[in-house]
Every structure is written in structure tokens, then in C-alpha cells.
């Protein structure tokens, strides 16, 4: 692809970079315990926690870096961090 003049770019290209590969711990969401408060989505620095049709939440593992903020902040303790590989 030819370079853009002036080192400019249109939106959407960051998503090529799948930061899920950075993850060592994976958040496991337990929808049955979810109170649908949405705090997990709000505090996610990646913006990769997605609301489901049921109103509960799932992480987008393509981008989730496994920081654990969602698990830490979940008032219902419905998210658990588990090691990716043992």
C-alpha cells in the first residue's frame, strides 16, 4: 500500500494489531453471576468488553491484554482471572 502523504492514516487500523497475544491471565466471565452493571466494560482500557444481547458482558479475546481490571472492579465478583497456560 502506498504511503499516505504526511504520515497520516484513517481510523480503523489499530484493530489490525491483535493485542490478545499479550495476555498471560485470561478473564473468565460468569454471566450467571453478572448483575449487568457494566462496570467491567467501563473500566476496560482496551474497550474490548462487549455487551451481549442478554445484557451481560463478554471480553473480546482478540484484544484483551489480561490486565484484570474488570475482575478487580466487578462488584459481583463474577469475573475470574485464570492463567492462559500452565
Amino acid at each position, binding site marked *: 500500500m502506498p*504511503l499516505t*502523504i*504526511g*504520515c*497520516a*492514516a*484513517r*481510523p480503523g487500523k489499530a484493530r489490525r494489531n491483535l493485542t490478545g497475544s499479550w495476555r498471560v491471565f485470561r478473564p473468565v466471565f460468569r454471566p450467571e453471576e453478572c448483575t449487568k452493571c457494566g462496570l467491567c466494560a467501563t473500566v476496560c482500557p482496551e474497550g474490548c468488553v462487549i455487551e451481549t444481547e442478554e445484557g451481560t458482558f463478554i471480553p473480546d479475546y482478540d484484544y484483551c491484554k489480561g490486565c484484570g481490571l474488570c475482575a478487580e472492579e466487578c462488584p459481583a465478583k463474577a469475573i475470574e482471572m485464570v492463567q492462559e497456560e500452565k
Partner: protein
Amino acid sequence: MLKITEGSYAVAEAVKLCRPQVIAAYPITPQTHIVEALAEMVANCEIDGEYITVESEFSALSACLGASAAGSRAYSATTSQGLALMFEVCFNMAGLRLPMVMTIANRALGAPLSIWNDHQDTISLRDSGWFQLYAEDNQEATDLHFIAYKVSEDHNVLLPGMVCFDGFILSHTYEPVDMPVQEEVDGYLPPFTPYHRLDAGDPISMGMYATPEYYMEFRYQIQQAMEQAGKTLVAAGKEFSEHFGRDYGSLVEGYRLDGADTALIAMGSVCGTIKDAVDEMRDAGRKVGLLKLRAFRPFPEREIVAALNNVNTVAVLDKNISLGNSGAAGTEVKAALAGSGITVLDYVIGLGGRDVRKRDIARVVDLAEKGEGDMFYGLRTEVL
């Protein structure tokens, strides 16, 4: 219409005719008359634009950068220390490929402090990616603004440009200038159409960082744009002559070079003095001519080689010194003429406002013909 006016006011009038939308400038001697005149024009609604009274030259150029990125025609003017303070923004703006025009009322750089003319300020920014045009008189200073905007905003160029005219020597001189009217300028210079701009309707990220995988290619792109600027300057200069009758269709201008054995090379207002000196020397039977460099960036290497193919000796007058080497134009002309058999000698002259007279030009020619050069000309040895 031919009218007599101060150089600074002529430039301000030319800028007004270019319909700038955002002006950001900080006062500095000898540029002040330009920005004062523009502020007055904005205050009287003669310019339909914003005048930002910034707190430094650094912010002046930064604000112009923002305005250009948002799609407005931007303008600033400065000199010397002010230009030095803009250093970082100059490189950045060229790299972002944002067009604008800035007038430089050329002045020496301190220390020692000097408010007087030489070209050290703009020469020190020759590598910044701005094209640089140097005016011989206030007519040329006026006209080059119309041409500079046209070239800067051309989508094949997209580089900012400096119109350089000598501080005090031109900026504070009253002389007749043929000032075009608005309709004529509008017929030559179309409104600014940005290549891309900051616009919520069509978002874009500007000024990203480039890893080693990309950086060189971006710099190569700028180099190509600068080469294109040379071609576009010629085309825009020719088109200018069709509109206004004054010809700027070359990056250089030869004066009485036919049959010349010795050619002087110079930039800016000293070229006027040189022309008078050349006439006197020609009258005395000496085969001398002048090659004026109107553009220093892009460097008109091909034009120089073509114009000088019949001379034996070239004397380059540099109102600057690349400390540790020699004058900038001298170095580059030597490189351009390498292998031609032409002797090229460099003379650092007129620094910090030292007056250059016709007799100085004649002495330089004497020295060049004796093969003496690569020196500071006119040093007061009694104080050394």
C-alpha cells in the same frame, strides 16, 4: 498599479491579497511593520481572517500548523532569533506536508546580538523541508508571495515555503512597487483546497510516528516533493508572467552572463548592487556577469550548471557562514560545478549588516580573477 511604499507594507498588502484565513505572528525587528500592518487590516475588516497574537514565534508557527491542518490558509512572518525558535516546528510542518507561506525579513543570528541583515537565519533552516525564495527588491518580494502560496498548496508539492527578503535593506525601504488588485490575484491564486484536513466528517490521524520500516520512505517522499516544488515554481512563475507581465519562470536569473569570464553568484538584495557594479565593470571592458539564485531550496543545480557552462571563474557571495566550513551557497555551487573545470571561490560578505558597495563587488572580482577566495571578505583587520 505602481505605487511607492515601504517594503514591509508591500509585503503586508501582498499577503492581504492572498486572502489569509489565519495569521499568527510575534513581533521582532525588522519584521514588525509587516505584522503591524496586517493586524490593522484585520482590525479594519480588510482581511477576513483571524489574527492570533501569540506569545512566541514557536507558538506562532505552531498555530499556523494547526490552522493549515484544519484547512485554512495560514501566514506568519519572522526573522533571526524568531526563526531559530521555530526550528522544531519548521521541520515538523514540512514533514506533516502542511502548506503555508512565511515571510522572513532576513537578519543575523546572535551572539553577538545583531538586528541587521544577513542570511544566517534562513540558511540555517535549509534542511527543514521548506522551499526558500530570496527577493532582490520589494517588487520581487511582493510577487513571490503569490507564487509561493500557489506552489505550497499545489497537491503535487504540499510543502511550506519561505519568502526571504533582506531585513531593513528591503523591509524598511520605500520604493515603487507594482501592486496587483484583488481580482488579478484571485485570477492567479485559487482558494486553498487542502489535500486532507482535520474534519469530524472525515476523520484522519495526522502526525503519527513512523518506525524504521517507514521513516526513510516518508523522508524520500518529502525529497521528491521538494524536487517537484522546483518544477511547480517554474510553472507558477511562468503563469505569473502571463497574468502580471513579470517573469519568474526560472529558479535563477542571469544578468549579462553572455561572454562573461567571471560570474558572481548571490541571493537577495545585494544582487541589485551587483547589477550596477557589473554594468560599470562591463563599461570598463571587464567580462563579468551575475547569476542570481532566486530559489535556494530546492537548490537549482541544473540551472546553475547550464547558466555557467562558458565561464572560467565563479565568485559566490555568501551572507552566511556554515561555521567550520564555508558559506552555504559556495559549498553547494562547488559541488554543482565539480568536474566542470570552473574555478569556484567563496566570499563570506555583509554579515550582520556590513554594507556592501559597488566597489566591494569589483574587489571581489579582482580577487577571484587572481584566484584568491574562500575567505571572509572585508574584514577589519585593524580590530583583529
